[in-house]
């Protein structure tokens, strides 16, 4: 029997958390985050002129008796927003001494559990070169075990293609919502454009970059023959201390670039090395970023 992705102790701690978003998004009544959109909520928001076709139940009849004019009461909407967790399952995720793929699955499972406990609609969407079959569940912790089974059955495969996946995502999920992307963001093509595409479509983004220590600071020295895990391309080179510093600088610049794209679109970015325990990563950088609270 495979080992569960998260143990009970972590799950108990996760029950205190809630997935948070910043933008006002339309959605069905029943959520727990307020929206600037008026609708069928409980909290009074404002009055406006009555127009034909408005709901007569919302008319302020006291004002009509005093002023002989029809005013309509508007209420603040607390919509139910779909939470979509995109998990990178490309071949590059299984490189490194500690697997980024396992780390990403654990992270996705934790966020899924937080959402299910708070009765959010959860969609687990794996991707690599295209979108794979998704797992969708709404509300209730009893849905967590199927989600765990789904994540446990995932296998790394394919080559990352963020652009294609973004297009497919926008067409597959027209309702705007919260998009949490768990990936190493090591697409050989630039991933700025696909991320911007998602933001422009109206999704609120939370980008979680996962890297192994070897991805950021390779420990090897001397002559190396390197093979790209996704493309199989090989290169021979001589690597030394100076080259390592340059490599790390390039990696950090790439991570900063992804952060800029997220923050520019009112999203959030969290970087997570796999050497940090998953519990520490959730209750540390993830909580600090405001993605969960």
């Amino acid at each position: 029997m495979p080992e569960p992705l998260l143990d009970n102790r972590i799950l108990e701690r996760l029950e205190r958390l809630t997935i948070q978003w910043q933008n006002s998004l339309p959605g069905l009544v029943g959520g727990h985050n307020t929206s600037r959109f008026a609708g069928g909520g409980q909290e009074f928001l404002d009055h406006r002129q009555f127009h034909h076709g408005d709901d007569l139940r919302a008319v302020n009849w006291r004002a009509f008796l005093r002023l002989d004019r029809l005013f309509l009461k508007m209420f603040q909407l607390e919509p139910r927003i779909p939470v979509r967790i995109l998990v990178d399952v490309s071949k590059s995720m299984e490189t490194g001494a500690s697997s980024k793929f396992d780390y990403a699955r654990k992270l996705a499972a934790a966020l899924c559990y937080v959402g299910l406990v708070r009765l959010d609609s959860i969609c687990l969407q794996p991707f690599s070169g295209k979108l794979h079959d998704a797992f969708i569940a709404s509300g209730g912790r009893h849905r967590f075990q199927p989600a765990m089974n789904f994540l446990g059955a995932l296998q790394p495969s394919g080559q990352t293609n963020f652009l294609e996946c973004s297009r497919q995502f926008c067409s597959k999920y027209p309702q705007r919502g919260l998009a949490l992307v768990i990936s190493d963001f090591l697409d050989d093509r630039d991933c700025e454009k696909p991320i911007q595409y998602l933001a422009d479509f109206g999704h609120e983004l939370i980008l979680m970059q996962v890297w192994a220590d070897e991805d950021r600071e390779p420990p090897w020295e001397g002559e190396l023959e390197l093979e790209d895990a996704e493309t199989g391309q090989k290169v021979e080179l001589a690597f030394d201390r100076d080259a390592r510093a340059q490599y790390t600088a390039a990696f950090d610049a790439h991570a900063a670039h992804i952060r800029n794209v997220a923050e520019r679109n009112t999203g959030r970015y969290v970087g997570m090395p796999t050497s940090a325990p998953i519990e520490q990563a959730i209750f540390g950088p993830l909580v600090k970023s405001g993605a969960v609270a």
Partner: protein
Amino acid sequence: MNFLNLGLGELLGLVGAISAGVVALYLLDRSKRNQIVATLRFWTAADVRTELKHRRRIQQPWSLLLQLISLALLLTAIAGPQLGIFDATGSDHVIVLDTSAWMGSRSGQGILMDQAKTNARAYLRSIPRRDRVMLVRADALATPATAFESSRGVLDSAIQQSQAGASALNLSQALEFAERAQKLQSQRAGEIVFIGAGRVTEEEAALSALPANLRVISTNSTLENVGLRKIGLRRSPSAPDTWEVFVAVRNYGVRPQSVDLGLQFSKSPAGSRRLTLQPGAEEQATFSYVAKSGGFLEARLNVRDAFPQDDRAVVELPAEASSRVVVYSDEPQLLRPLFLANPQVDAVFESPAKFDPAVKADVVVLDHFAPPTAPRTATIYIQPPASGSPIPVRSTKTGVRLDTWHPETTLGAGLRTRDVTLESAEMFSPGAGDIVVAETTEGPVIVAHGSEPKQVLIGFHPGRGSMKYELATPLLIANILRWMVPGAFRRWEFQAGTVGTVNVPVEASSKPGDIKVLDEANRGLPFTVDDKDLRFFSGAPGTVRVQMGDREMVYSLTLPDVGEAVWRVPATVHKGVPRAVLGDAAPRDLWPWLALLGGLGLLADWLLYGRSRAFRLRAAGAIAPQWKRMTQWRKAS
């Protein structure tokens, strides 16, 4: 060069094999590694040299060359090469270093042994370095300290470790040993060098049968010394609580000496005597001292001479042992003369009504009395009642004639009587293992039971009738007590003497099988017994006990043995330290320099080409210009 007796070709082969291993390890260390990475974008973004398809296999040839040269230097250092002409025609000398007790005597600021060591080192410096030397330490035995050795360091260390011993010099044996060693082991015999004071026995003082190649390097010593030769102690035969002490003092010098001899027992003065000793004379002083308790007896000569080691001797004396005898009798006056005659017997007389089976005594005497519970100690029954006798009473007769003694038994040794008729006597029926000591015409009247507790049954009263006036009666009681409590009648003799060979007079009755010679740890020492003497050897100070039947002699061999005379060296013998050989072109060892160079080479390789970051940083600073040029070349290529 002597590298495991390998020839030049074999050595080169070994160097080649090790070099091949080093090259293989070098290439393995610098071979490329295959790695799978998540992406190549940052590798190409980093400014690293790529496309090494036509790279050279050996990336750091200077590093490899440096390693190979360093290893070759280290291997050559192990071979121990020497610079200079190796002359194998050196001589083999034997230094006989006097380590006898006299070498511990004072001379100036130090002792004679220091002078001898200085002379030995001076002799070593005077001979060519290619000559080999054997060091022999000579006292009562000649002991080789080294084999024939060319290393001056080893010889110097052996000389330094030599110490004055406790025995006298046996010069003839030492010279004979040196001669034999040269004959058997040397390639070209050199000199036999005796270094020391040459204090020997009087027989060896005029030793003239000497090796032709003998050289003598004498140490200057004063001749004046007065010392203790021997201390003897024994209990006085007439008064057992009195010790008779004999002290022998000798004047080894050439002038008459008057010395005070003091005796202390347990730090209390026990006697003193002033002795006047002629040159070479030995005087003996006798003391008597009453002491029942044990303690230490110390003899001391109040004299200041060059050799204080023989001015004091200490002997440990045991407490006087006596056996306790409890006599239960209604007529103690008849038995009192028999038991009180022996001073080593502490006799107590009680009436039979006071009998206690747990009485603390070595021997219990029951006169006409047999208790229901037998005593737990050795017991003498005198005419026991037939009902309580431990050995059955066959019959009781009057007017029987005592006609047979058994002198072959321990109890009957030396006993005999003539025309003795016993007024009343019990005849016993001895069992198997019982000893019959005396018999009448009607049967045994004295029987002994040998198993513990020992028992002797006397079928008549020894204090009555005609036996009262017989000499055999007290002897019988003495034999019985000695048989029952042998330790109380043991004769002790103590002697403090010198180490070496000890001669002990042996009584005619002693059998060699009954003699034991034991050291302090109760281990047997080898000894020989000839006609009248027992002889054993003790090379180190200590205590030796000699047991012969009921006689035990304790030898406290703590006095150093000093020769009585000084060896008169014949005029024909070479004397003094020879003049040093000039132009001694001894080969010099090169291995320290080769090892240093090899080590420095490996250290430099590690600093310049090794993987240690800290050292590489320092090295990078030192070779920065060259590194910059190489980087530019890499970029260009």
